[in-house]
């Protein structure tokens, strides 16, 4: 109620700011900040740069795994392997069928005793 009755609120704010500044100075004096280690700022920047840099692979195996496990590459590899397996299996299966059918025909028309 007392503050509300003050005709000049500006002077009241000015004295509060001054008191605040003095309070900070007292507080700083009471708790002195430790001295920073040498090249502190430089080290901080270096750590920030390292954190922002892309992760480097440890070896060629890591690089290969990173490549292979990429979804697009993985799907393409699986599709290629399946296609290669199906084509080779079909070809080999057809050859086997051909040989079996040839052997059956030969067994029918030319008995073993004549060959």
């Amino acid at each position, binding site marked *: 109620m007392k503050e509300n009755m003050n005709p000049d609120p500006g002077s009241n704010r000015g004295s509060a700011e001054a008191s605040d500044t003095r309070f900070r100075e007292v507080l700083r004096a009471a708790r002195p900040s430790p001295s920073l280690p040498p090249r502190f700022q430089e080290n901080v920047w270096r750590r920030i740069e390292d954190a922002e840099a892309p992760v480097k692979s440890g*070896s060629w195996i890591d690089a290969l795994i990173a490549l292979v496990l990429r979804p697009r590459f993985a799907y393409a590899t699986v599709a290629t392997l399946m296609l290669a397996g199906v084509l080779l299996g079909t070809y080999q*299966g057809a050859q086997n069928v051909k040989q079996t059918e040839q052997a059956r025909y030969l067994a029918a028309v030319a008995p073993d005793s*004549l*060959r």
Partner: protein
Amino acid sequence: MNRSLVILLGVLALGAAIFAGSYFVSQRACAITRSADDLSWLRDEFHLNDAEMARVRLLHEGYMPQCAKMCALIAAKNAEVQAALGSGTNVTAEAQQKLTELGELRAQCQAQMLRHFIAVSQAMPPEAGRRYLAEMKKLTLGSHEEIEQSMSDHNGHEHGTN
């Protein structure tokens, strides 16, 4: 073991499993589609149409009883040869005679077989017929030539030169 290496080996094993699975499934699928017909090889290998297959089938069915009869005669003669040879260590005159008769029967059977192959080849389109005849000669008579060739090559021994 290094974690990266384990992952790499796992990826390789998975890839190999995918390839092998596709390969064996496809191979089995082909084997299932195999025909039960004795003449299916001729149709597939020489690309015969239905009319050509019908002619070949007729010849085949006509030849089969003759072939079976010859086979029975050869089997009987073979049994006679075995009986004549017995457990002795000498080739007797009787055994020699039976061997000659067996050889003659085989020659007759081979001649009959070759006549059948020629007839079948003539029932096919010319190019397919030539290829069929060459293939059948190689498959049926070629094995004798290979054996004789291997025997003549062995240790410089040559038949017919001494």
